[in-house]
């Protein structure tokens, strides 16, 4: 079943060793990512404590429908990614992997599109921090801090999504071309972990950014 060239990468001596090492390394990397996003969340918490009213008012100016749809898109894309990883692990026909990855790519692409629409809307409304920032009903300086954090955190997340989409595109090609299925499945598992992590960050961003002050 296994292709003759499908051998482990040095210095590993077995696929299981290589798989465990790669997964361990990926989780170490994701732990690093948690602490890369962490300071921005800390900043958000500190300024939400300092400026509670402005943050609630500013939060109401975000587009909750766009944010909600985007959350759903990411969650579903995580599902299709899980399917792609599953197919790769079963060493199935690469067409199945490619199909799941393509759907993931489309969903992720839609996320980026909607996010860009939101940005352009907010910039049009004068919510981009800077000299022209204005927002009625709240201390402009404090509301500006909310939108600074908003652009920063969603922007950093968007960067991760775009990197993920680039990787998915590469993996679609790889899935089509490769004969080294075992090695490919190890790599696919790490791609999956990365994509789910991007989803995970958004799961926390969504309520903090979009849901504040909706009940008032």
């Amino acid at each position: 079943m296994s292709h003759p060239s499908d051998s482990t990468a040095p210095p590993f001596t077995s696929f299981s060793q290589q798989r465990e090492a790669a997964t361990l390394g990926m989780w170490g990397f994701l732990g690093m990512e948690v602490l890369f996003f962490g300071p921005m969340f800390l900043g958000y918490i500190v300024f939400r404590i300092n400026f509670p009213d402005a943050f609630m008012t500013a939060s109401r100016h975000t587009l909750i429908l766009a944010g909600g749809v985007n959350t759903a898109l990411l969650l579903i894309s995580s599902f299709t990614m899980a399917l792609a990883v599953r197919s790769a692990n079963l060493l199935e026909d690469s067409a199945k992997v490619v199909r799941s990855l393509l759907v993931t790519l489309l969903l992720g692409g839609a996320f980026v599109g909607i996010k860009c629409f939101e940005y352009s809307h907010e910039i049009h409304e004068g919510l981009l921090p800077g000299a022209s920032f204005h927002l009625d009903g709240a201390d402009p300086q404090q509301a500006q801090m909310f939108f600074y954090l908003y652009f920063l955190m969603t922007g950093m997340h968007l960067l991760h999504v775009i990197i993920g989409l680039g990787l998915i595109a590469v993996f679609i090609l790889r899935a089509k071309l490769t004969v080294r299925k075992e090695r490919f499945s190890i790599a696919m598992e790490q791609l999956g972990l990365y994509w789910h992590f991007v989803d995970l960050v958004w799961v926390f961003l969504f309520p903090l950014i979009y849901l504040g002050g909706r009940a008032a």
Partner: protein
Amino acid sequence: MSISTPQAEMQPPLEGPDYLHEHSVRSWLLTTDHKRIGILYLVSITLFFLIGGVAVTMMRMELLTPQGDLFASSTYNKLFTMHGVIMVWFFLIPSVPSVLGNFLLPMMLGARDVAFPRLNLLSWYLFMAGAALALWAIIHGGVDTGWTFYTPYSSTYANGHVIAMVMGVFIAGFGSIITGLNFIVTTHKLRAPGLIWFRLPLFVWSLYATSIILVLATPVLAITLVLVALERAFGIGIFNPAIGGDPLLFQHLFWFYSHPAVYIMILPGMGVTSEIIACFARKQVFGYRIVAYASIAIAVLGFLVWGHHMFVSSQSIYAGMIFSLLSFLVSIPSAIKVFNWTATLYRGSIWFQTPLLYALGFLGLFTIGGLTGLFLAALAVDVHLTDTYFVVAHFHYIMVGGMVMAYLGGLHFWWPKITGKLYPEWPAKLSALFIFGGFNLTFFPQFILGYLGMPRRYHIYAPEFQTLNVLSSAGASILAVGYLLPLVYLLWSLRYGRDAGPNPWQATGLEWTTASPPPEENFTIAPVVTEDPYNYHPTEEAADA
């Protein structure tokens, strides 16, 4: 001499070429061999050490007199920033982990290479790219913020190329993260058969602890520096008090990285010291397990104490008390290590070779550095000592007295393995003594200066401080000679040194079972570990046997 039992059988004599046989530039720049990458790091950080050294030489010359004779204040500010940034990020942090760690970790584990060899090479390129950017910033006018980049000065008011400088550190940071990840996975997954965790050399334990810090602390610095750069570029950010931001948030984030980073700059040195002391006292390390656990404890506790850098900022008194208390905790595992090394030396059959001289120097200087750290962790005392030369002396005792001594000790200890040549013993001993003496003459007066109230980072000072400053500068020149000597005789030994043989010290680690220099694949026969580490038998026992 005494007997020792290596952890595995000796390898057969090498018949093929060793790892250094290829000489083309391409074979170096595209290598994925951990040993060659270690040497790439060795050459690069030596260069940065010299650059950082030039900066501090100029500073010490300026400080000979109380007036500003050589430089304007702004130039002096740029000099100490350059010294700090280069020495911390481009010399000390990669020193032991990236040079000795890269070279030795896979060999100590009985592995062929690190887990991800290509990423390992990438980490060196990231390091060099970051360094190039930082050097670009220095050449094009420099940065005057100090290595701490405190906001809002760095983000709003400072002149110079702050953005390029912080991005340089940012990029180099990802190099360290990759190195850390690589070490962690390698230690978990590539140990030789029989090499259980409690048979690992203590150097491996300390590298593992260091890697935890590299992976978990560096990203916080990375994003914080991005925020500083954004704030500087666009004038908006969370650190600028003029628009509602909080500059102390920067200090929290910066020290969340930078305090643990101090342990990046000492833990690997502790590992080196454990290896050297065991070998040259011909004894097992006293309380091996406790020393191993202490490394992990230092790495973890090191994350809980950062607020002691902020006692006189507007941090709340309550937080100050918590951080002060937690800071005292770190002294426990550090003290355990010092006591255990001392106990290892006790009744050992001491063999006074150069590496041991360095290790003993480490022991003394680290103890002074650590104990003065306790003064600074005490809230009330720190109010008096903050931002004085006392702090400068304290952290140089740890980072230079401790880490650089250990780095040089390790370099001498493993030089025969790395190059296959023995260094000349007498100049080496002389350099160890020069460094120890020169170091104390340089930095001990600074404790007194700080206690008397001389602030750091000024080049014009009250005339009554001149005598101590002259002493300090005199010490620095001795120190400089001590640092230049190894550069000369180690290079000399490459050509004229005697052949070392696989195990010149009769040491026990797996790295000594293979040829010097080792073959590209480290071991021709996969080693099987049958022994605990440090199986040295002191002379009396050997005679009995």
